[in-house]
């Protein structure tokens, strides 16, 4: 069965626009979290977010695209451009039918949607934009990306809260195995508008702390919720042999994947994260000892932190593997979070360095994890595990393997 490798990375995050800026900022422990500026947040109990500064869509996109796209789609399109450029795919390498798209959605283009809802209800149906028929729905990024890059192969959208990003990459691998040569995959989210904000707050998982250095502290004794972020990543997933034939240098292989769902309380409860991890390891034919770093979901809600810490300790042994949460610098980016973590994992393999978790100082008692705090940490690149969880019980896990270990891939 053919391998699926990642050959290109495009990232747009609150602490860096573009893969290089994002990665450099991440290694420096630079946070993009501060008080929301996009709308007046002052009346809300939660006021911090990771917002992307300095993204001017007209710098990257034709004027024609602007009225018909929510901010998150604009960012996704630009990230997709960057990913393809990073992969160095020459036009004409693949036929249009050999390329597809698989993105994760989460909240859709809700800023666009809130504007149109406002138009409808304050002015009337005739004030609703023609573009509303697609601009706010979850499928929009996949659709617009496929049009922009002329990709006529399989195209899909997965929605599973904050776990969806890994599910989309798994779908990309599935399609590569079925014969598609190249898939643009990942997720980008924003919905930084009052309605999106209030919606997030109703989960009761948002931190109400006003200090960016203390608001989002996964695994910390003081954990009291998370901070939202906007942005994400688009990755180029390719058939390993096709990538090799065109001389591409993959970042790494999507080696294993597992997805589970927690048992509902009414069925006795029971967490599924460990099964997802074990499934991903088995799928990668990897032992726990092969994993050199875990990019944790890092919920920031004590109960979820506890489950994740216990799971990691149980699978790998107490303190046995470095764990990190670079999301502490960006906030939780809905469908964009896990793809950004995948980007970090791949870059940490490339550069043999693990990014830090910032702001966390004291790991909660009983969490037997080796959290990388303070400084980035060198490692011997091996395999990385990325975890993503979603409200309701979604658990996804993905194992990435460094390129040198991919059979037949260029070192």
């Amino acid at each position, binding site marked *: 069965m053919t391998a699926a490798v990642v050959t290109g990375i495009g990232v747009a995050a609150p602490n860096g626009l573009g893969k290089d800026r994002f990665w450099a900022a991440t290694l420096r422990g630079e946070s993009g979290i501060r008080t929301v500026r996009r709308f007046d947040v002052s009346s809300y109990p939660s006021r911090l977010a990771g917002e992307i500064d300095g993204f001017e869509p007209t710098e990257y996109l034709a004027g024609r695209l602007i009225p018909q796209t929510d901010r998150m789609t604009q960012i996704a399109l630009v990230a997709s451009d960057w990913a393809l450029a990073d992969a160095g795919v020459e036009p004409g390498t693949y036929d249009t*039918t050999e390329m597809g798209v698989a993105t994760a959605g989460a909240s859709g283009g809700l800023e666009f949607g809130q504007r149109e809802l406002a138009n409808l209800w304050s002015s009337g149906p005739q004030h609703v934009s023609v573009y509303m028929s697609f601009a706010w*729905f979850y499928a929009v990024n996949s*659709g617009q990306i496929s049009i922009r890059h002329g990709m006529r192969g*399989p*195209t899909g959208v997965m929605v599973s809260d904050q776990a969806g990003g890994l599910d989309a990459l798994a779908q990309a691998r599935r399609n590569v195995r079925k014969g598609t040569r190249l898939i643009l995959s990942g997720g980008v989210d924003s919905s930084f508008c009052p309605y999106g904000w209030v919606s997030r707050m109703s989960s009761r998982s948002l931190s109400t702390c006003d200090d960016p250095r203390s608001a989002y502290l996964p695994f910390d004794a003081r954990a009291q919720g998370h901070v939202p972020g906007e942005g994400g990543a688009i990755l180029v997933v390719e058939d390993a042999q096709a990538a090799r034939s065109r001389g591409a240098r993959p970042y790494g292989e999507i080696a294993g994947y597992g997805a589970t769902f927690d048992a509902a309380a009414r069925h006795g409860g029971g967490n599924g994260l460990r099964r997802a991890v074990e499934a991903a390891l088995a799928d990668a034919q990897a032992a726990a000892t092969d994993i050199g770093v875990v990019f944790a979901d890092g919920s920031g809600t004590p109960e979820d932190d506890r489950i994740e810490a216990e799971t990691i300790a149980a699978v790998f042994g107490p303190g046995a593997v470095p764990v990190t949460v670079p999301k502490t610098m960006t906030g939780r980016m809905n469908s964009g979070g896990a793809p950004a973590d995948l980007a970090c994992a791949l870059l940490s393999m490339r550069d043999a360095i693990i990014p830090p978790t910032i702001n966390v100082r004291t790991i909660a008692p009983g969490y037997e994890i080796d959290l990388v705090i303070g400084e980035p940490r060198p490692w011997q690149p091996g395999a990385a595990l990325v975890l993503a969880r979603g409200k309701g019980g979604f658990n996804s896990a993905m194992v990435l393997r460094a390129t040198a270990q991919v059979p037949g891939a260029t070192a």
Partner: protein
Amino acid sequence: MSGRRVVITGLGVVAPGGVNTKAFWEAITSGRTATRLITAFDPAAFRSQIAAEVDFDPVQAGLSHREMRRLDRAAQFALVATRESLSDSGLEPGRLDPTRVGVSVGSAVGCTVRLESEYLVLSDSGREWVVDNSYASPHLYDYYMPGSLAAEVAWEVNAQGPVTMISAGCTSGLDSLGHAADLIREGTVDVMLAGGTDAPISPITVSCFDAIKATSPGNDDAAHALRPFDRTRTGFVLGEGAAMLVLEELEYARARGAKLYAEITGFASRSNAFHMTGLRPDGAELAAAVTAALDESKLPADAIDYVNAHGTATKQNDLHETVALKTALGDHAYRIPVSSIKSMIGHSLGAVGSIEIAACALAIDQGIVPPTANLNEPDPELDLDYVPHQAREQHLDTVLTVGSGFGGFQSAMVLVRPGSPA
């Protein structure tokens, strides 16, 4: 991959004209249309004032008051359909290994009904941009992040395998079943609750289809407004509903003596990469999806006995689809019935693909081809046999269903009678 195969063993449908599978099938095989003037709200200010609504009484449908409070209408449909399909399949969740059960729910617009109604409260009818947090429902997050639709189904059946929502516009319901079939074939799960749900009959969705003039303004004759393949067609009529199907690995189903409706032998997705709402008349990518689905099924084009069409009755779709079918099936396209049940149940976006698959399973099981209603004046450019008005008895071994969606999605699935030589 091993030789794992996927069969449909249970059906649950909530559709306009039929709040359960039996009523739904009876309605569409008698050619009865469910399109009417919108009753969910006052449609007077809208261009298209009609819809195919489900006469849904949540209490009668078995929902508790907490479920009614918590769940968006689309989630309510999905839950009711899930319960019916589970019961139909004979599977008992308590006796399944939950880690081998997954869920895939397709939806295009998620929890729009509740998102809109909550918005009205929080924004004071659109007057305030900075909406008032103090009125927010504790369930608002679940409407905002509609993966909750899949979560609800998972809780209902205690699925602890992979659970996801598929949101690819109007092909969501089809793609959801394709995804579920993939997971079973891969060996990750043995059972999937798979389907689609949408409840888009809400002012914001009605407005956005009004804006692009995609929906029919045939308000004076609602019952006949959705006229697929007809020369006088004027667009689609918004519908709502859900279908949830139980999918099982074939040997697993056989071992327990399950009733097998149909086997899913092939599925393919393509994109026209052309325009978010427009279609190129050559239908090339839909044709490619059909061909790929046939290839996966290891079947030739002339194995198809019936095509369940996308048939939305827009000028562009019906032509696009007809050309695509001719391209993919050649002359054989002329020899088989092609019908659109949207003529009767409306277009329920992300749900309809699953409802149509349920119809295909029943068509195979019962040997009846549902008709295309309202087809009085065939468009001369569209010259296939669209089964006007009357259902037809016909033994079916192999059925093709297709869909196209905003965003360029083009999908196709092949279903086969269990035990047929195909």
